[in-house]
């Protein structure tokens, strides 16, 4: 079974690199660090609970217009997906785009994990 917690920590490290880039926009320093705080907490909470989800019954992925559904088990391609997401985040060289990615990377990670993206 994929160790979701270890994989998510790779994403957390990538978020740290985006923070280092984004915080160079002086006016956004607090916002950048607040984004890191809330999204890292969310990702770690999901990763900690993903073992239970992996052993639970699979449920159809909810469309955007429905109620939240139980998380799906992580897909077998999860490790490759998160590695590629981290690589994509590491390609960002512009601090403004880094700030965009501080919100985008966690959402994409949650989708890859089969979770609701929020």
């Amino acid at each position: 079974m994929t160790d979701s917690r270890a994989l998510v920590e790779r994403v957390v490290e990538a978020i740290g690199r985006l923070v280092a880039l984004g915080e160079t926009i002086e006016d956004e320093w607090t916002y950048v660090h607040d984004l890191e705080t809330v999204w890292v907490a969310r990702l770690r909470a999901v990763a900690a609970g993903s073992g239970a989800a992996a052993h639970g019954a699979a449920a159809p992925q909810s469309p955007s217009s429905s109620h939240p559904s139980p998380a799906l088990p992580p897909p077998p391609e999860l490790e490759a997906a998160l590695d590629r997401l981290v690589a994509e985040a590491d390609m960002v060289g512009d601090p403004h785009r880094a700030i965009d990615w501080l919100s985008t990377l966690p959402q994409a990670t949650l989708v890859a994990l089969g979770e609701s993206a929020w």
Partner: protein
Amino acid sequence: MRFQDAARDARAVVYAGIQADPLVARAAALLADATAAQRVLARAVMNGESDAAEPWRSMFPTLFGSVAAAEGSAERDRSEAILAVSLAVATRGEQVRSQFRGAIVEAVTELLLARRVAADAIRRERRILFDGVPAEIHPYDVTVETPGAAEAYDCKWGARGISADVLHQLDDARGHAAAEGDRLLPVLVIFDARRSCEVRLARHTAPRTGTRLVTIETLDRLAGRRAEAAS
């Protein structure tokens, strides 16, 4: 309270060209019917660096991998179409894609609203005038001009677009309308997660209690449908 077309200055003329681009309409139509995960895909690709489809397919295994909807299904076709249209936006260059992204959020908002209210009540780029109050410089992206139940929408691609100016303009409009005995619901539509929006809003002291926040996970509420999270 009166509604009026915004002045057609140079910026408005240029932006109108982007709003009328078929790529904007195509993206908006796809995103209006998209799942939450598909909307996140669009957001990532239009924010991203990679300009080829395959890396994005590998980043979103729940949309394109072994657990995704079967190839040839309507759901899978929509994921592919969203990926293609998002890449088309992303490859326009930083300045242009930023304008496209904003126009797409406005167009999605208009499409979803048209599922709840009469299409002829929905207008774009309108100013709202009140007796004795100087007009705001910036027009509202979308308005619903229903007598007695008007709505004013400001649309943003990301949470970072939330500013004190935006919050004040929306709240002022609501207050001026109330002073004239009218009802105006101001709404911020942000194509970003509510979690990021709340982080942004926490930095502002501008009034927001009378302004409704619609985020990427609650977009369908514009159409009167229930969404994944309450607004």
